[in-house]
């Protein structure tokens, strides 16, 4: 859920990495934000942050399980090249968090 930085409160958790205008990662996904962090983000020009909503949190594991299945299915029907196998392995690692 995207939320304006002005409405962000300490304790919120970033759902995806927070990037600055040069796409440098300021905070990784899954960070619990403190007041200090929010001030830093404001100073770095961040206007929106994708945070985990309570609904998101409940659905997150389901979504991940579904995404893992999709990856297995999709790569299963694709050519079994070294490059695709490497991508599949690392994608599954990524989805496992």
């Amino acid at each position, binding site marked *: 859920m*995207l939320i304006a930085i002005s409405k962000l409160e300490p304790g919120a958790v970033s759902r*995806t*990495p927070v*990037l*600055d*205008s*040069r*796409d440098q*990662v300021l905070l990784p*996904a899954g960070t619990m934000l403190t007041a200090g962090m929010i001030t830093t983000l404001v100073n770095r*020009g*961040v*206007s*929106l942050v*994708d945070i985990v909503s309570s609904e998101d949190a409940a659905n997150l594991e389901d979504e991940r399980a579904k*995404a893992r299945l*999709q*990856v297995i*299915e*999709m*790569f299963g*029907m*694709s*050519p079994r*090249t*070294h*490059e*695709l196998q*490497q*991508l*599949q392995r*690392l*994608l599954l*690692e*990524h989805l496992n968090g």
Partner: protein
Amino acid sequence: MAEKPTIESLTEQVRNIPTLPAVLGELSKRLEDSKTSSEELAQVIQKDQSISSKVLKLVNSPFYGYAGKIHSIQQGIMILGFNAVKNLVLSTSVLEAFKGVKSGDGFRIEDLWIHSAATSAAAKNLAETTKLADPDEAFVTGLLHDIGKVVLWTAEPDFFRAAVSLSINRHLPFGDLLQQILGFRDEDIGALLAEKWKFPESLREAIRWRERPAQCKQHRGLTAILQASNLMACAMGYHDLPSTPLGTPSPEDWNNLGLASDPQLKAWIANSDARMQSAKYFLEMLN
């Protein structure tokens, strides 16, 4: 199977697609002159009110990180650069030209644009890390790479549907399937339209050789970035044609992009995941 289209019938179809707004041609011409100022370029863009208001909306989107801070086209050009703004005008014009395209059984135009936005996000990131192409150019190439599919869907929806089913049943990527039964690919149709719309050469070539970068000698870096990013978007679940098999890059291109190394591929996956979220937002604003 539905009647097979020919390259001639599709060329005719492409001929009937309207040209892009005049502002784009004028912009390209002015950009060739190194003496053109940002003020003059802004004046050209402002001649088309619909495009200039969209461009302003986009440069102020969180995607660029200047939300609410850019108040004029000229300021946008000064901050983001000539090429970034020209690419925005191009993207806006193409999406506008395809606005009337409807989804149907077997194809959702929304999925295609979300897939394209995801591809563009991954491509921009890969261009930045590899320095093998200009990041803004990589972004626009990602966004517009699938225009051939839109033409094919619009011209021959029954055939398109049948081809998607065959691609799934035969475990063949869509482009390979078209090559097998038609003798040409959706990328070739895209290249026809890119030529009609006078896209820059690099963009035309990348669209045409997307699945065969080795054949694109002059712009191989950009083309390989597009191929890998298209794959990444599909692999992350942003599919243009759900359930169709993935294409595969050559070991040489994969290696040249640095992706044969696990840590680099891992970093690209993480970064693409984050950026694809903002690209979707960018697309919402573009529409």
